[in-house]
């Protein structure tokens, strides 16, 4: 019954204090929102907190959802705001966590079984640079590139979620890629 409902119908049902309806919303979007938060923040622990806070915030503001936008757009906006807030807080707490290589060492890295240690180290370094470059992008560029690469959304879907014209989304993705390329070239890392 609940599974056949649209996101918008689920919100209506959840507003009528049916926890199952909101549970279904969480089930549908948690992975994508987690991907967005991970791409935006670059850290698993931060991303987990951000996802949790995103859904709690959404649940607390269910009655404020007016149905003018899609539920997916609404959730993404909350998630992006959560990530930006979290990043701001983290930056005020310490200089920056992006260059914290101790934390980078703790991150999960799945290397191919037959890779040499040198090759593994090289791959790891490369990923660290990519992550740092993405995290250094302006928020409006970072969110589109993360939605494209991590959530694998189409331009049209991103356009609907962010309520932006399709051409603006394409343009932002292009600009994001261009800036990433510049940043990575500055770190003398040949991506290509």
């Amino acid at each position, binding site marked *: 019954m609940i599974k056949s409902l649209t996101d918008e119908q689920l919100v209506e049902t959840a507003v009528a204090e049916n926890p199952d309806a909101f549970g279904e919303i969480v089930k549908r979007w948690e992975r994508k929102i987690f991907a967005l938060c991970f791409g935006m923040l670059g850290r698993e622990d931060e991303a987990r907190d951000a996802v949790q806070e995103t859904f709690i915030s959404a*649940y607390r503001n269910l009655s404020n959802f007016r149905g003018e936008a899609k539920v997916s757009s609404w959730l993404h906006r909350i998630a992006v705001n959560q990530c930006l807030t979290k990043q701001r807080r983290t930056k005020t707490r310490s200089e920056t966590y992006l260059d914290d290589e101790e934390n980078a060492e703790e991150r999960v890295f799945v290397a191919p079984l037959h890779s040499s240690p040198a090759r593994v180290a090289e791959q790891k370094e490369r990923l660290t640079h990519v992550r740092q470059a*993405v995290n250094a992008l302006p928020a409006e560029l970072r969110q589109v590139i993360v939605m494209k690469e991590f959530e694998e959304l189409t331009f049209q879907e991103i356009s609907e979620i962010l309520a932006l014209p399709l*051409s603006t989304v394409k343009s932002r993705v292009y600009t994001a890629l261009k800036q990433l390329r510049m940043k990575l070239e500055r770190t003398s890392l040949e991506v290509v």
Partner: protein
Amino acid sequence: MMNENHHHKNCDFSETLAAYLYGEATRIEKAAFESHLPDCAACSEELAAFSGLHVAIGDWKTKEFDPLATPAIEIPYPVSSPVADSSLSKGSWLSALRQIFSLSPAWSLTAATLAVLLIGGLIALALISSNKSNELAGTNKPQIKTTPTPAETAPKAAEPAVSPKPADTPTGPTTVRNPVSSETPPATNPPVNSRQVRTPNTPRAARNENNGRKNAEPNNRYKNEQLPPKAVDEEEEDDSLRLAELFDEIGTE
């Protein structure tokens, strides 16, 4: 290293390049871009670089994000709905009992079924015992006649007449007169018509017989109330006699 300002000075394929990279360009866009690429080194170089970035970000996702389990989201739902809150807020023994029943619906259903069966059994026992006591009372006490009929006042010659039978007598011949009814005082009671005689205690067979007669003889209801009830054939004869008398009286006048 490429000159950043060089690209797209003379061509405007930035959006198409992004769409082409992710395989979302329309057929027309794709054809136009592919025909443009051989003539534009900057676009070709940029496409190659972006393609490498796309792979690199994909690697990052595959190696660092994909192995991660989706976090278990804990939503602080209210402990119970407002309706439940109002009934359970007092924390009384009743609320505790309700909670137990709400937790074990199968158990509560079984208990409810047993209770219904028990109540039903008690009602059945009560009915059986009351019937037995009625039977015993019927053997010791004279039966009370509820609706005396003028038939009791009529001479024995007018018999047999249809009369109601007591409820507990078996459905036998309907023409047998109730012997108890003859013992009641006759003339002081107001006369009743045949419809009034059909009390709820009339056995089904007798009622059916009466109904059949009513359908066959609709004039029965108009018969004189002063006349004693008679047998079916006599009643019909009696009506015709009375009508004849009336016509005679009119004729004489």
